[in-house]
């Protein structure tokens, strides 16, 4: 594997990791129950809306 291949694949891996993390974080944030506390306090023992 050439140096160029190695650098390019490292950039691709970083892009995959970053985008995966972003999607996971976004879904976690956007699929809260819709109440006044979610997703800030992760339900915090309250029943939701």
């Amino acid at each position, binding site marked *: 594997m050439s140096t160029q291949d190695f650098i*390019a694949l490292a950039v*691709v891996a970083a*892009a995959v990791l970053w*985008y995966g993390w972003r999607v996971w974080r*976004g*879904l976690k944030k*956007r699929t809260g129950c*819709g109440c006044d506390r979610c997703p*800030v306090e992760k339900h915090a023992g309250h029943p939701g809306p």
Partner: protein
Amino acid sequence: MDLSSGIALAGNPNCGKTTLFNALTGLRQKVANYPGVTVEKKTGRAELPSGPVMVVDLPGTYSLLATSPDERVAMEVLRGLRSDTPPPAAIVAVVDASNLARNLYLLSQLLELGRPLVVALNMTDIAARRGQGVDADLLARHLGVPVIPVVGHRRTGIDALRNALASAQVPTAPNWSLPDGLIAELEVLAQVLRTAGVPAPHCLAMASRFLAGDDAADLAPLVAKAEVAEALEVARDHLAACGVDPEQTMIAARYRWIDSVTAACVRAGPTMAAGAHRTYTERVDAVLVHPVFGLGIFALIMASLFVTIFWVADPLMGVFEGAIAALGTWVTSGLAEGALKSLLSDGVFAGVGAVIVFVPQIALLFGLLAILEDSGYLARAAFLMDRLLSKVGLHGKSFIPLLSSFACAIPGVMAARTIENPRERLATMLVAPFMSCSARLPVYALLIGTFFAHQGALVKGGLVLGCYALGVVVAAATAYACKLFLDRGAVTPFILELPTYKAPQAAEVLRQMWVNTTTFVTRAGTTILALTVILWALAYYPRLDPAQAAAIAAQHASAVPLAAEAEQVRQGDEDHALGQAQLAGSYVGRFGHTIEPLIAPLGYDWKMGVGLIGAFAAREVFVSTMGVVYGVGDVGDNDAPLSVAILADRKADGSALWTPAVAISLLVWFVLAMQCLSTVAVMRRETGGWRWPLLQLVYMNTLAWIGAFAAYHLANAVLGT
């Protein structure tokens, strides 16, 4: 005075609060949402004589007895009930001088909050034009707080306001002239509250709130105390026995106070006194909100908007294209052929560059919308639309969520929370993604710019307008279906205040352009960059088998030496064939071929299919995907604009792959398809389950497939293949 916990700007809707906020904070602003609610939280830093302080621009409200979510947020911040926002150290009550009486109701409640207060008497210029003078000094004496005349959009009075804030004091609540029986009950209740631990200065105001039916969160712990609940019940019983409705009596008392204050402080000039002359705004409104002319002018304004976008942005886009190509060449010129060079030229510059060129159009769109909003026209558009919206089963309040959806469906779906009726709210959320969001604009611009390049701005603008109109028409039909099949529930009236017309402020228009353009560029530099890099890898690997490459080269080899020009053509053909073979054998090529049977009836090949799949991450990724796909395909011609590469692509039989019919079919697909997974996630949260988002996903994409199929075959029949 310590202002470290910040200043809150409070006032009625359309009193010029945001303009004043901009004047106080300049560009030092941050826009977010209050956690868990859709209400926008705008904060900024203002420089006061005592040093920098945070300023929060609260949602407009007519009263502290909140009903809608945004009014509740304003009330909670002002009362210091929100954990995410510190209680304000001082309040700036923004009052519209041209509508003083109406604005004084909220002010009467702010005076009771027990927080330092300054009144910013805004829109004094409009009041003066109406022949209405407000004596600020006299008003200050009546209210017991400093009253600073300001004109937010001209930045006048801002320094005086800053100085007044530095020495703001807690005002004394006015005397409301209540009936003796009510005063007696309030005093008894206040005594009980004092015993329950409420600080003495707040007891009477809190007792008033209890009897006025306030249900704010800070009262709940007190009601839970048996002695308070009992005293409240006794007070209500006593008043009912005397035939006194405490809530109505207190409202009437406030209005008597308001009448006395306005009678003393407002001087009606000759224009007002005569009463015969209509104001400038009324005269313009007679035409702009006319049931027939108004709609015609609305259509004309919208058409002009889209024509202007193409007409003005075209030359600027050429400059962007040239700059990106030059930068790409400069960055990659020192690199040998290989993966890294391909990643940079065929991935990053071809992909992200293809999206970045649309910056001028995005900036113009938001600039023109800001002009319409700032002038006061958008509120008229909402008024005009209410008539049409109610016919298809939507509410007047649906206009703002739908209008927001032209920027992005996510805030649009979330803004539907302000609609009280569940069916109207659900219908609004279901149709919001049909509004063409800004992510679709680069796709429209690419397709229309490529296939209708020789048409004038009028035709191109008309086509973009047609895309927007198609979304609106299908949304209306869908909403009408919801009206037929969903239970309506209680009817809620639509109340809208039409602001006075005023000249748009250049600073506000530029601010809107800046905020929206930077958001677009940030997105191109993050999400789209990451997806482009991933897509490049999927198109670059696995590499073409050397034996297959040699076979292709052999096919294109010439037995006899060619002239320089012919040799150049032969080399170009060989490079093109190699690029196509590489792409077809890559991961992305294999995937595209798998889904090709599904999209072939729409006129698309596997490369477009790859673009459509990429667009599920973000719609504008379609453009960058095409940039990557054609950047890889045209190895020998990396700097060619995407449009040229698209038009040059051929089917196996030599006919053009991309035709105007394909472009129209793609436009219809992008108007109707639900491709934004972030919107699906927000729908899930807003509807509390997966049922509606999944139904929406299936419905919109099925409709898009049928629409694109029909458009392709219809366009072929009309335009010819």
